[in-house]
C-alpha cells in the first residue's frame, strides 16, 4: 500500500481470524444501503397518496403483491437490525461495552432483537390487515 513513506501500514481485515461479530458489522452496513434503496418505495407510497386515490391504489396493490410483501418483510428485518445495531454503536460511542464478553452479548442481543421484532411486527401487521 502506498502511504508514501515506504513503512508498513497496519494490517487489514484479511489477516484476522473470522469472528461472527465481523458478520454483524458488515451486515449493519449492508442493511443501511438496503434501507436507503427502500426509501424509494416509501417515497412512491407517499407521492402516490398525494397524487390521488387511483395512484395510491396502484402503490398499495404492489405492496400487497408477493414481491411487495417479500420486499416489505426484508426491509422490516433490515430496519430492526439497523436500529438495534445502531443502538449498539451508540452505546460504544458513549464509552461502554468494549469488553469482549459484553461486546459478544450485545451482538447476540442485536441478532435476537432484530428477528424477534420482525416477527412481532408481522404478527401485528397480518392481524390488522
Amino acid at each position, binding site marked *: 500500500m502506498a502511504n508514501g513513506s515506504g*513503512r508498513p501500514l497496519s494490517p487489514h481485515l484479511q489477516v484476522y481470524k473470522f469472528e461472527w461479530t465481523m458478520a454483524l458489522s458488515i451486515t449493519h452496513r449492508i442493511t443501511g444501503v438496503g434501507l436507503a434503496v427502500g426509501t424509494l418505495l416509501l417515497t412512491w407510497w*407517499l407521492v402516490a397518496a398525494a397524487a390521488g386515490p387511483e395512484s395510491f391504489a396502484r402503490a398499495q396493490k404492489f405492496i400487497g403483491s408477493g414481491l411487495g410483501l417479500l420486499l416489505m418483510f426484508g426491509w422490516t428485518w433490515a430496519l430492526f437490525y439497523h*436500529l438495534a445495531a445502531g443502538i449498539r454503536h451508540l452505546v460504544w460511542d458513549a464509552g461502554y461495552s468494549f469488553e469482549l464478553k459484553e461486546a459478544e452479548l450485545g451482538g447476540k442481543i442485536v441478532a435476537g432483537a432484530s428477528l424477534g421484532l420482525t416477527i412481532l411486527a408481522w404478527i401485528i401487521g397480518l392481524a390488522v390487515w
Partner: protein
Amino acid sequence: MAANLSKKSLRSPLAEARGLGSAKYGTEHWWHQRVTAIALVPLTIWFVFGVIRHLGADYTAFVAWMKSPFSAVMMALTAAMTFHHAQSGLQVVIEDYVHNELAKVLSVLAVKFVCYALAAACVFSVLKISFGA
C-alpha cells in the same frame, strides 16, 4: 499534498502532515450521523407500527391518518431524518470503496442530490395530503 510525500522519506505520513495546519473540520460528519441516528430511534418505532397499521389501508383511511397533525409531523420528521442519515451513511460507504477521485466525488454528489430530492418529495406529499381537501 501528495507531492510532499517522497517515496524515499523515512518520516511517517503523520510527521509529514504535522505543522501544515488543521483541516478546520473533522467531527461534524460523525456528529450529524449520531444526531440523526438518535432522532431516528423513536421515529423508526413510530414509523414501523404506523405503516403496519396502514399496509392494506384504502385511500380514505390513509388520508385520515396523514391529516392528523401528529402523524403528519412525525412522517415529515421521519423522512427528513431518514434521508439526512441515508446520505451521510452512503457517503461513507462510497468513500470507503470508490477510490477514483472523480467517480467518488460524482457519486457522493449524486447520492446527496437524490436523497434530498426524495426527502422534499416525501415532505411535500405529506403536507399536500395534510392541508388538502
